[in-house]
C-alpha cells in the first residue's frame, strides 16, 4: 500500500521545524550545521514525495543533486569550524563577532 503524500509532507515539515529550532536556539557551530543538514533532508524528502505524487522522475534526480550539494556544504562548513576553532579556540558562534560593528 503506497504511503500518502500528505503524511510524508507532515514528517518533512516536522523535520524542518526541528532544524529551524535547532538553528535558532543552539549556539554550537557543529550542532547548527547538523540542524541545517536536517532541514536539507526535509526539503529532499519533499522533492521525492512530490516526485512520487506527480509521477515525474525529476524530483528524484534533484534529490540526488541535493544530497551532493549537502555533502559539499558540510565539507566546507566543517572546514570553517576547524579554522574557527584553530584561530579562537572556540566553536560557539557567539564568540566570533569580528564583523559585528
Amino acid at each position, binding site marked *: 500500500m*503506497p*504511503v*500518502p*503524500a*500528505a503524511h*510524508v*509532507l*507532515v*514528517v518533512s*515539515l*516536522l*523535520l*524542518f*521545524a526541528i532544524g*529551524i*529550532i535547532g538553528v*535558532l*536556539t*543552539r*549556539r*554550537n557551530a*557543529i550542532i547548527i*550545521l*547538523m540542524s541545517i*543538514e536536517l532541514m536539507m*533532508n526535509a526539503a*529532499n*524528502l519533499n522533492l*521525492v514525495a512530490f*516526485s*512520487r*505524487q506527480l*509521477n515525474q*522522475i*525529476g524530483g*528524484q*534526480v*534533484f*534529490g*540526488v*543533486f541535493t*544530497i*551532493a*550539494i*549537502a*555533502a*559539499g556544504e558540510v*565539507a*566546507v562548513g*566543517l*572546514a*570553517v*569550524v*576547524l*579554522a574557527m*576553532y584553530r584561530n579562537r579556540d*572556540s*566553536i*560557539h558562534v*557567539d564568540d566570533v563577532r569580528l564583523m559585528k560593528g
Partner: protein
Amino acid sequence: MVSFLSMAGLYVLLEAEFVAAVQVLVYAGGIMVLFLFVIMLVNLRDAAGMRFALRPAISAVVGLLATGLMLHLFMRGRPGPAAATSALRQGGNLQAIGEAMFSDYLLPFEIASLLLLVAMIGAILLARQPRN
C-alpha cells in the same frame, strides 16, 4: 544518526530506491564520519555543556511560529491521491533516474560536479595548517 537512516527507509517507501541508497552512502558513510572527525578534533570538553542562544525563549517562539505557519498553509490545501507509478518504474528506478539525469538534467549534473570541485578546493584551503 538514526534520522538519516530512517530517511532512507522513507525513500524506499516512496519507491525511490536509488535516492535511498545514495542517502545511506553519503550521509551515513560520509557526512556522519566527517562530523565525528571534527567533533573528535575540536575539543568538546567545554562545548559539551548546553549553551543556548542569548534569548532562547524568543528563538523557540519564532521557531514554533514558523512551524505553525507552515502547518496552517499545509492544511489549506492537501494533495490528492498519488498517481499510479509508471514513469518511475520503467526498467527499474535506477534506469529511469539515469536516463533523466543524463538527458534532461545534463546541465545541472555538470554544474553539480563543478560545485563539488569548488567545495573540495575550498575545504582544503580553509582547513589546512597555516604555512608557518
